[in-house]
């Protein structure tokens, strides 16, 4: 390797230019903007200091959106794990058609979000949807369920999102499962461990760290998810029953055209994620130390 700083920096220049100009600068500008009352299009701005933050502390819509975000991220995370981990365990076994199935399971994750959403809106359609048809035919409900009405829209959003994102858990967990030395299982079997105890005492300890990463990434990504939530109900109607912080930030900026307010929401989300991540690392370290 040669010492040639100029060539090294030159090669990195396009990357640094893009990231500096289009990520780092906007992040800083965003923090600055959050201190102003600024119209989204017009060049009008007025310094308000921490005014927006104070406003949101008492804003019912803010706390609603925060609550929706917790429910949405929490429910989808738990269900993605509940579906994804057994699926990964299954796909780690040897059986005919396994490789085909590994490909099929990835479908929901590979297709664009817009497709996942229109697909589930159609399946969950109250009058003609297949889900309602099956539920009524099976006698589970007497009348069709208004899946996309205000009472069920959050459940529908969760179903759609879990379907769309559980393959990530499958792929990531499966990748780790494949690297567990078979000897560990053989030893456990010799010791008379059944399937459950092998999972409990071999698989789980071996996959602790990948689970740590999966939970971290999926929580952050679900908490900041915009497209699936927005596409599910758009801007009006029942959208307020699933509105999360990213959607609220979008609405503030581009519907009410209050860019400063939107920027403040982005800063709040960012701080929440940093704090949550730090706490999460702490807790994990402590557990690690205990075990």
């Amino acid at each position: 390797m040669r010492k040639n700083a100029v060539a090294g920096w030159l090669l990195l220049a396009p990357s640094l230019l893009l990231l500096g100009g289009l990520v780092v600068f906007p992040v800083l500008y965003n923090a600055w903007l959050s201190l102003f009352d600024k119209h989204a299009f017009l060049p009008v701005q007025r310094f308000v200091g921490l005014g927006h933050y104070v406003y949101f502390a008492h804003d019912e819509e803010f706390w609603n959106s925060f609550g929706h975000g917790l429910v949405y991220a929490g429910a989808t995370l738990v269900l993605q794990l509940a579906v994804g981990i057994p699926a990964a365990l299954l796909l780690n076994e040897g059986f005919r058609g396994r490789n085909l199935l590994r490909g099929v399971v990835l479908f929901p994750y590979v297709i664009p979000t817009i497709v996942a959403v229109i697909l589930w809106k159609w399946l969950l359609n109250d009058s003609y949807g297949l889900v309602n048809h099956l539920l009524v035919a099976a006698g589970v409900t007497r009348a069709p369920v208004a899946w996309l009405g205000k009472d069920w829209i959050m459940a529908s959003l969760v179903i759609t999102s879990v379907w769309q994102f559980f393959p990530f858990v499958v792929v990531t967990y499966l990748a780790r499962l494949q690297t567990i030395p078979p000897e560990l299982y053989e030893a456990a079997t010799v010791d008379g461990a059944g399937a459950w105890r092998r999972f409990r005492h071999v698989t789980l300890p071996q996959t602790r760290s990948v689970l740590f990463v999966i939970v971290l990434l999926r929580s952050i990504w679900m908490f900041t998810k915009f497209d699936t939530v927005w596409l599910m109900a758009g801007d009006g109607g029942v959208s307020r029953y699933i509105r999360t912080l990213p959607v609220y930030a979008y609405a503030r900026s581009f519907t009410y055209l209050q860019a400063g307010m939107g920027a403040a929401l982005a800063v709040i989300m960012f701080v929440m994620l940093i704090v949550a991540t730090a706490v999460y690392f702490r807790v994990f370290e402590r557990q690690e130390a205990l075990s």
Partner: protein
Amino acid sequence: MRRPGRAGLLYVGGLVLLVVGAFPLFWMLSTSLKPSAEIFATPPRLVPAHPTLENFDRLFADTAFATFFRNSALVSLATVALTLTVSALGAYGLTRFSFAGRDKVAGLILVTYMFAPVMIIIPFYILVKQLGIVNTRLALVLSYTTFCLPFCLWLLRAFFESIPLELEEAALVDGAGRGGAVWHVVLPLALPGLIAAAIFTFILAYNDFLFALVLITSEELKTLPVGVNDLFNATIVDWGMIMAAGVMITVPAVLFFAAVQRYLVQGWGAGGVKG
């Protein structure tokens, strides 16, 4: 020792997984091929009795779907080309030259990966407007490239690092210039990494809704996700046509993915796909 019923259990589980993964897509395809009377029939038929392409005809005749499709293809492919070029240059710089602060820079690049687009979309929009490129495909390409860069840089860096320097030096000794050595030695060996980066980038660009929603205002520049979502604005939602649109969007994504899937596993192992 195999317990009785283990194979049965596996197949039941496999079947459930198959239905969960594939049935919704099958249902979309089936609906898209049904005439409207069948779409709204009770009980619904699993397979269309009278398959027809009329939904697809309407999609192309009555909406700007072909334009959206073209825009999505152009933007996604341009993003792939630009991202691969920029990140390959950067990764080469990071692995083949040593200079002060190199590892710090690499770390900082990774930090930028933490910012979800929705957290900077407002200043991003204002910036793009200042640059005078709001409502252009260029704005989309630049946005997607920026958001794919950290991952692709790190992925390619890992691949370039695994290529022995001696191979490159041998080519240099044999009289190839540095460019020739890179082109004939480094890039072919890093091909799986380049392909994984290309898939990751394509999927992200093809899928994006937020940037396209905010940065594009004119009908003739819209990409698929925004354009297709607009189909719901009709007074009577044309489900057959919307399902046809879903099929048309899915086909390239699945084909692209199936063609190069085996490389993706490596890429996923190296860092995970965001979303």
